[in-house]
């Protein structure tokens, strides 16, 4: 079997999904996921993330295009794929009257090469809750039970649809550590999330979906490379934007003013910040709530949403960055 590190474990080409009412949720999506990497699908609610992942899981046939998971069509060749994948749906489904242990035992009976249930339940932190009925679990505990079942068969490919929704900060961090460890041991992970922080922390590569299409894809660094860094501050009373030094020579590409709050966009954060701070010191001005931050996924995300919803609504932006 092919084992080189660059093997494409998931290949998606021209993927489309149309629901019964005619709504086209996925409108031509292409991406590949390599063995042993974490790939994140990001997007607002309704962007088509879950609709896409369900096609990769083999729950439905695509309306168009092609999916290959481990070299096979997950829908028509399910027997070749299912015992090598683990799935965590966006909303897990377990009989509410079964205990955690009974649920895991039921699932283990249909998983090839299942690991001992107790071991996997302990991995996700449910080791002390095995005799509790599912209906008595918190939302976060249910998510972790779902994750445990997805991991029971030591899958080569793991699909996680919003794995940390409903988890508290600590649970979220635990899940991140677990998923990173799985990746390090060779598991390929495709996850969806609407937490940008999660994608930034976990993903080797990501794609941002918008209205059924992939708007941008790459490593987190590549995706944010096209975005400006941001400097935000409040000017004291009596000062106006015009009192600042000329913005262009400072490296500032765009700016917005909202009351006293000024937002500058720059591709040369160090130069712009230095010039701004030197001006403030020389002028004896205190910049309130000063915030200087590098380009982030959030920026990329907002740009995509803004471009799509209102392309002409640029406010007082002085210059558009071509992506």
């Amino acid at each position, binding site marked *: 079997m092919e084992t080189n590190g660059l093997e494409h474990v998931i290949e998606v080409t021209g993927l489309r999904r149309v629901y019964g009412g005619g709504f086209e949720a996925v409108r031509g999506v292409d991406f590949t996921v390599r063995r042993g990497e974490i790939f994140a699908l990001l997007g607002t609610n309704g962007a088509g993330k879950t609709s896409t992942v369900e096609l990769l899981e083999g*729950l439905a046939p695509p309306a168009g295009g092609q999916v290959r998971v481990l070299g096979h069509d997950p829908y028509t060749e399910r027997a070749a794929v*299912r015992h090598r994948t683990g799935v965590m749906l966006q909303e897990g489904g377990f009989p509410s009257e079964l205990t955690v242990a009974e649920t895991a*035992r039921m699932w283990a009976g249909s998983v*090839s*090469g299942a690991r001992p249930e107790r071991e996997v339940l302990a991995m996700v932190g449910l080791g002390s809750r095995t005799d509790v009925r599912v209906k008595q679990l918190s939302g976060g505990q249910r998510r972790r039970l779902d994750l445990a079942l997805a991991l029971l068969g030591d899958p080569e490919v793991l699909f996680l649809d919003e794995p940390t929704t409903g988890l508290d900060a600590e649970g979220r961090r635990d899940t991140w550590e677990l998923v990173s460890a799985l990746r390090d041991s060779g598991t390929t992970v495709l996850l969806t999330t609407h937490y940008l922080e999660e994608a930034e922390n976990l993903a080797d590569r990501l794609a941002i979906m918008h209205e059924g299409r992939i708007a941008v894809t790459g490593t987190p660094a590549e995706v944010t490379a096209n975005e400006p860094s941001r400097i935000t501050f409040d000017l004291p009373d009596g000062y106006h934007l015009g009192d600042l030094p000329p913005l262009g020579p400072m490296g500032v590409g765009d700016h917005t003013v909202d009351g006293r709050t000024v937002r500058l966009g720059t591709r040369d954060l160090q130069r712009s910040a230095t010039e701004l701070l030197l001006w403030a010191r020389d002028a004896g001005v205190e910049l309130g709530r000063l915030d200087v931050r590098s380009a982030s996924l959030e920026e990329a995300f907002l740009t995509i949403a803004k471009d799509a919803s209102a392309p002409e609504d640029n406010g007082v932006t002085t210059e558009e960055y071509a992506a």
Partner: protein
Amino acid sequence: MSIATTTPAGRMASLARAELTLLGRNKGALVAGLFVPLVLPLSVRSAAEEMDLAKAGLTPGELVLPAAVGFSLLFAVYSTLVGVYVVRREELVLKRLRTGELRDAEILSGAALPAVLTGLLQCLLLIAGCAVLLDLSAPSAPHLAVLGLLLGVVMSAALAAATASWTRTGESAQVTPMPLMFASMLGSGMFVPLELFPDRLASVCELLPLTPVVTLVRGGWTGGLSAGDALGALAVALAWTAVAVFAVRRRFRWEPRR
């Protein structure tokens, strides 16, 4: 892959085991499925006293036992399973199961096993009960009775999945099985043998799903069923099963409507 690969039987067994646990924890289903089919035959027994059974050539036991089998199939298998399928769908259990190695038919069959076995066990109990209380003799054509019983449980499970296809919520699952249950109780020869019906009505009622089961079980005991009538009953039961399976393949919904 040298690791322990699952088999269809193993997968269904683990699902059936979980469903059996769930059945044991569902008081409503337990009463309806276990208790009712043991009590209702008593009302058939009292109805039998007001009937001219000799005209139909039947002993009281030969009226009550097929009816009891019918009640068992309707309550312990059919209506119980409609509830199971609909509630598991609402809980998103069916959708979750479909992401794994279980195939669609294995999910529906595995989930049906506890109810099917309950129904069969109940029928054996009822036969023993009729033998002791109603002096029911040994069956003259046991193969017909066995055939009727097995066809009956398979058809009831298939009809339950078909009914679940048209049932949206757990609450409506209390109602949607009723048409078939009432039609069967009135028209399938459970309370009143079809021999006592007007001819034209009787020939329509022979086409109801549960009629062939009642006919075969009764014929198994009396031995008075001709080969042609037995084949006819067999054909009706198989046709209903085929229709139900076809409907499930076309219409069964694996997740709730949003």
